[in-house]
């Protein structure tokens, strides 16, 4: 579905991603694992068109997208839920969701999608008229995910959805990720909660200093000696 072919990205002179080759298969959950500063968020932003690749090609459903602008890439069905949620905090829950369904096709199905989203997140339904800023951290993250779903994405990219959340809420977030995937949405996930991420992932890539150094099923990566040492801190 999504293909990176020899993609390199640089900020000025600083190389951030080097010759990335990566495949995201339809209806799968794919995780990107790596230290802070390895280039994971950059990879998501490059897919979204927020950052331009310096060389290489990116294709989605057989069409090149690496030269497209972010608003065009959204129309392909590629949606990023950024780290830190970036909600419209002074709008209500419902209005945040409406903004998510701005695209013509999504707007047409807005009511139906919103019903689906509310059935998945009953808390948001209860709080539909509340301002986003009055929600707890966990509810805000749910709203960010729900807003992403309102555009009826084919590929949903999540950047650290569990950041700063209580253990119980982290478990909820991962159940939601699985549920969304079971409804047919492909997911590309960046997480520091590696154990949880690999448990739900069909496939994972390990990125170090901007290069992919390892890939495998979630189970393989969780059991790999290198990942155990470098990311789980085992000795």
């Amino acid at each position, binding site marked *: 579905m999504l293909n990176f072919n020899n993609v390199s990205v640089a900020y000025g002179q600083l190389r951030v991603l080097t010759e990335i080759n990566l495949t995201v298969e339809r209806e799968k959950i794919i995780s990107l*694992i790596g*230290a*802070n*500063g390895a280039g994971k968020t950059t990879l998501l932003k490059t897919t979204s068109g927020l950052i331009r690749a310096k060389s290489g090609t990116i294709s989605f459903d057989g069409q090149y997208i690496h030269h497209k602008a972010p608003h065009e890439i959204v129309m392909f069905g590629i949606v990023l839920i950024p780290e830190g949620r970036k909600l419209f905090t002074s709008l209500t829950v419902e209005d945040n969701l409406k903004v998510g369904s701005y695209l013509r096709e999504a707007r047409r199905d807005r009511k139906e999608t919103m019903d689906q989203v509310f059935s998945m997140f009953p808390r948001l339904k209860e709080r539909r008229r509340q301002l986003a800023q009055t929600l*707890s*951290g*966990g509810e805000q993250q749910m709203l960010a995910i729900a807003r992403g779903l309102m555009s009826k994405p084919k590929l949903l990219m999540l950047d*650290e959805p569990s*950041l*700063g*959340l*209580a*253990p*119980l*809420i*982290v*478990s*909820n977030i991962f159940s939601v990720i699985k549920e969304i995937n079971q409804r047919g949405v492909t997911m590309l996930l960046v997480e*520091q909660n*590696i*154990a*949880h991420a690999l448990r739900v992932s069909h496939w994972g890539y390990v990125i170090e200093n901007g290069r992919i150094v390892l890939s495998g099923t979630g189970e393989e990566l969780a059991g790999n000696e290198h990942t155990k*040492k*470098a*990311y*789980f*801190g085992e000795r």
Partner: protein
Amino acid sequence: MKNLLEVENITKNFGGLTALMRVSLVVSEGQIKSIIGPNGAGKTTLFNVITGFYRPNEGRILFQGKNIIGLPPEAIAFFGIGRTFQLVKPFLNMTLLENVMVGALNRTSSVREARRRAMDIIGFLGLEEKAKTPTDALTIEDRKRLELARALATSPSILLLDEVMAGLNPAEVNEMVELIQKMRDDGVTILLIEHVMHAVLALSDEVAVLNYGEKIYEGDPKLVVKDPKVIEVYLGEEYSLI
């Protein structure tokens, strides 16, 4: 052990919302104590009350036996209560060293002395190579360390850490745990807010749990993970230590 910080019956309301309801807890000298609880339980509000950012509606806070309610944050910092912020707040147009020097100037008016003290701390945290780096070029992990360095530079007797593990992977969490243990060995008492339970259990002598502004548990970290109420409101049934 001597009591260093005593929080007594603190209540804090925001309009009709009670963020803290008669919360009491004691931190003794040399201890590492953790505060856990759901998002929105009042943990950061408690830090803001202790450090003078908010004035509580009721209650007292004694530091080394003296009531500090009503003092401004800078006086409280000068008395020896340091803190970090959940969302790191470096001065972005300054280098890492300059940021840490700002903390050190809490204790000295000599820039030279502040630089010397800042370099010591930067060395302690293993950031020497990045001392001259502009803050906006640092990774999140290094910004978290900088947040710690700047707070340490104020020479606190007690350091309040607000989610310093957030955004770190498990290996990076282990490094941070070691750093905090080293700080305690150097004589700094620690009170921390944290969701990363692996770190909470590795570090804490005692744990307090807040839920909707009320303390629902205080005591042994090994028992907290078995407490049914804490599992219900915070940890969840699926909870595992990873």
